[in-house]
């Protein structure tokens, strides 16, 4: 085991290690703590199964890990905070060490938060880690969701996990809202004030719901303790339960992987949990925790002592919620007031009800339903463990970017006052512009994204057919100049040719063999239409025959291909011709740019 015993580095060192048989022999007595545990739990089998579990490597798989680790940090720091936080609206006069607030009446919740910030040693750092990691939690969940969407990781068998993740995301932002409302400062109190207004807008039941929730008139003394219970008990319990289910399903399904050489739908290629991922993921937890702590040390967040205690009368200009509530606040700002109606002596305040209480669950329901919509459109009942490259699913990617652009405009609209102040523009113009952009940008984003994806697919197509530009310019015997293109190595090419080309579903005859009209054709016509919307203008994946045809499209190529394949380094000027697919005057019908629009490119193997 001594490092000196072999000069061969880590590889040699590992070769030096005990073999499995030796380890087994040394431990076969069944003693020790592990043996004691296994005698009582039969944990040996699941332990070795889990330790051997293989995880594929990719930076985008760390996004979900950031969310998981932020959750752990939140639980740790949150538990700390509960030791000093007093969830009460009871009135006290401040007499702590923060001078500007001395003598001011405030709630116990606010006072204890100020005390945590100024009088509890290390309290401020815990508070700031907690708030920063809450922001990181919601950011990483969102970006993780984007990754899963754009790579198609929600497809069978993972639809349930997508739905769980969607619910987790919704719970996370509500957990965030209940959390930042607890200090009872002026900013968060204004948020609760608005929330009370939202609840009042519920048709028929609104004022009752508000009075039940607040234990009477706003603000009352009940809301802070109730929010506290929801924040530290109810929501965390549900989140942890769903999170556990989320992780168990990841283990059951085994992680998805990006397409690449050797990777198939029937295997998972990567590194075992023990030791590689134990070190990598375990280390990553400390990295996330460390970076969050550094942010908390160096960047102030939510300085509630500057806002002061909540009072219903004053308000600060530029009141904004935390980022993850921004889209809902933006929706509220953009929704025009004329949606409030008086019907039969009752007020129906849709201008508040829709943006505040309908938009959020609606957007999340659409997100949650997407896997089922797409699988209905594709009619695909197979399991998918290989991820899509986003460009290879142009319509899905376009729809995703459309949704993100919609969300982003709502998010930016929540800062319309700040934009107006910083840019010196009229708030009315900005709001009107956002109202129009909200309707115009998403379809545009869809269209642009889809075209970009298809362009990227064609570039891949071209790259496979014509190879890489080598930078070498050759003059032929006839005197024309060409740049030599080198064919892609097999391992690089695979990632570009492994995916299927999806074609739209076609309607079968609407009349059966006996001449009787079949039922439910309307539903099928709709399905065919949506399918054609998804796949009608798909770019064909290159097939071997197509590649061969591209190589054989000139007269002098046959011999040359063989020569090239056998690795001949030098070719005569005449023989170069066969490799010159990028040549200016060489635009055969099989060229990637020649005839995509009518779908006849691709040589003899392409279906017409």
């Amino acid at each position: 085991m001594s490092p000196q015993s072999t000069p061969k580095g880590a590889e040699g060192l590992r070769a030096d290690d005990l073999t499995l048989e030796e380890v087994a022999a040394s431990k076969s007595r069944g003693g020790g703590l592990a043996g004691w545990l296994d005698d009582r739990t039969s944990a040996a089998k699941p332990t070795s199964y889990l330790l051997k579990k293989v995880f594929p490597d990719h930076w985008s798989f760390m996004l979900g890990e950031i969310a998981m680790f932020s959750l752990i940090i939140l639980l740790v720091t949150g538990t700390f905070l509960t030791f000093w936080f007093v969830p009460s609206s009871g009135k006290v006069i401040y007499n702590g060490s923060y001078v500007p607030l001395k003598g001011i009446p405030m709630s116990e919740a606010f006072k204890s938060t100020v005390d945590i910030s100024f009088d509890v040693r290390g309290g401020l750092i815990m508070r700031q880690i907690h708030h920063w990691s809450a922001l990181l939690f919601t950011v990483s969940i969102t970006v993780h969701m984007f990754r899963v969407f754009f790579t198609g990781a929600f497809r069978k068998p993972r639809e349930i996990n997508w739905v769980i993740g969607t619910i987790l995301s919704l719970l996370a932002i509500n957990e965030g809202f209940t959390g930042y409302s607890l200090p009872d400062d002026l900013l968060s109190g204004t948020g609760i004030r608005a929330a009370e207004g939202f609840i009042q807008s519920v048709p028929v039941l609104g004022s009752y719901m508000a009075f039940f929730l607040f234990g009477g008139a706003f603000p009352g003394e009940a809301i802070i303790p109730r929010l506290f219970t929801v924040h530290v008990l109810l929501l965390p319990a549900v989140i942890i339960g769903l999170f556990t289910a989320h992780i168990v399903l990841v283990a059951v399904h085994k992680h998805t992987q990006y397409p690449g050489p050797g990777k198939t739908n029937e295997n998972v290629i990567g590194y075992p949990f023990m030791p590689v991922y134990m070190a990598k993921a375990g280390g990553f937890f400390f990295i996330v925790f460390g970076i969050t702590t550094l942010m908390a040390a160096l960047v102030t967040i939510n300085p509630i002592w500057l806002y002061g205690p909540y009072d219903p009368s004053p308000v600060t200009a530029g009141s904004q919620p935390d980022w993850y509530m921004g889209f809902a606040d933006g929706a509220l700002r953009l929704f025009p007031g004329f949606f409030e109606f008086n019907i039969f002596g009752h007020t129906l305040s849709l201008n508040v009800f829709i943006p505040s209480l309908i938009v959020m669950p609606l957007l999340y329901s659409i997100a949650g339903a997407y896997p089922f919509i797409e699988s209905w459109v594709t009619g695909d009942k197979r399991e998918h463990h290989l991820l899509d490259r986003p460009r290879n699913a142009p319509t899905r990617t376009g729809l995703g970017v459309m949704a993100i652009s919609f969300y982003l405009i709502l998010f930016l609209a929540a800062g319309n006052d700040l934009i107006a102040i910083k840019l010196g523009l009229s708030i009315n113009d900005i709001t009107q512009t956002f109202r129009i952009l909200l309707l115009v940008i998403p379809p545009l984003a869809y269209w642009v994204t889809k075209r970009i994806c298809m362009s990227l697919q064609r570039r891949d197509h071209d790259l496979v057919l014509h190879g890489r530009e080598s930078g070498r310019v050759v003059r032929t015997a006839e005197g024309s100049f060409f740049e030599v293109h080198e064919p892609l190595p097999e391992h690089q090419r695979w990632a570009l040719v492994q995916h299927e080309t999806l074609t739209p579903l076609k309607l079968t005859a609407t009349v059966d063999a006996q001449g009787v009209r079949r039922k439910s054709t309307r539903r099928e016509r709709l399905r065919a239409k949506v399918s054609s919307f998804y796949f009608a203008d798909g770019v064909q994946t290159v097939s071997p025959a197509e590649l061969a045809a591209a190589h054989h499209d000139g007269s002098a190529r046959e011999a040359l291909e063989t020569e090239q394949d056998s690795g001949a380094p030098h070719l005569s000027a005449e023989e170069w011709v066969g490799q010159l697919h990028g040549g200016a005057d060489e635009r055969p019908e099989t060229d990637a740019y020649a005839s995509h629009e009518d779908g006849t490119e691709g040589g003899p193997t392409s279906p017409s």
Partner: protein
Amino acid sequence: MSEHGTEQGLVEGSGGAPDRFTNPGLPPHVPRSADLDERAARRAERQVATLFSVSMLATVVFLVAYFAIDQKTYQFIPGIGLASLSNIVLGVSLGVSLLCIGLGAVHWAKTLMPDTEVIEDRHPQRSSDEARQDAVETIVAGGSASQLGRRPLIKYTLGGALGLFAIPLLVQLTGSLGPLPKADLSTTFWRRGMRLMRDPEMTPIKLSDVTLGSVFHVMPEGIDKSPHVLEEKAKAAVILISLPPDAIQVPKESAWGVDGIVAYSKICTHVGCPVGLYEHRTHHLLCPCHQSTFDVTRDAEVIFGPAHRPLPQLKITVDADGYLIAAAPFLQPVGPSYWERG
């Protein structure tokens, strides 16, 4: 629908060549320098150990700083400003100690742990037909063994009991959470004859104090003695604005004011934020939460933003001592809309 399922899939090929390329398999493994060179491996080992040592050092710094630095020490730090020294030193040392453990572990994994990829097979999620059949049979057999289907009396009484047992829980919850709203949302602390008091000083306002163009944040007299100060303030907040009398375009607005001095509820009719921003030049009131804009010269009508209703006006007058008083309580509910508002 199901007959379409099979139409989706691969492009059909022809011409003798295969339809698809074949998977070339894993590329050959390329060993890292630390795998082959003992010096590189030792270097990596030292780097990992250094990171772990820095972490230990940072933990020591944290412990020393925890006891040594006073909570109330403030230090100017370039780029940050005046900041709590304790917070910065504790946070940075804790952060560095955590970060270095993480960086060390990841560096260790990337340089010294095996990087040969391992292949694990997948299996379909679907259980075997036998297992499914077995599950179905167990459920069916258990169901019939319980005789639930054949003993309707049990079936219906059980259904009734299970259907009812949740009701007490719901009744307890809804019945005890809060009182009924009754008239609470439609009334405020304002009564006829109450003086308008400056908020938060709670001093009365003399007509002669109100110069042209001035704005006062106002609360009703005696609200600070109310047993529910915040609840009352959340409804009773008023903004008093002195306009040039000829600027007012609505006769009712002038009639409810005094010499161009008008009082409006400060609670936004959208979701209830205080409408705190007054623009002197245009006489517009702006809500800082969602930017609803009210034109004070036109009876606080909404001219922009998501609110729908104008701010309710408080009818004011002057008492014998020259102080501004309410001539009547608010005649309509203030604040956000609700169903029974009418």
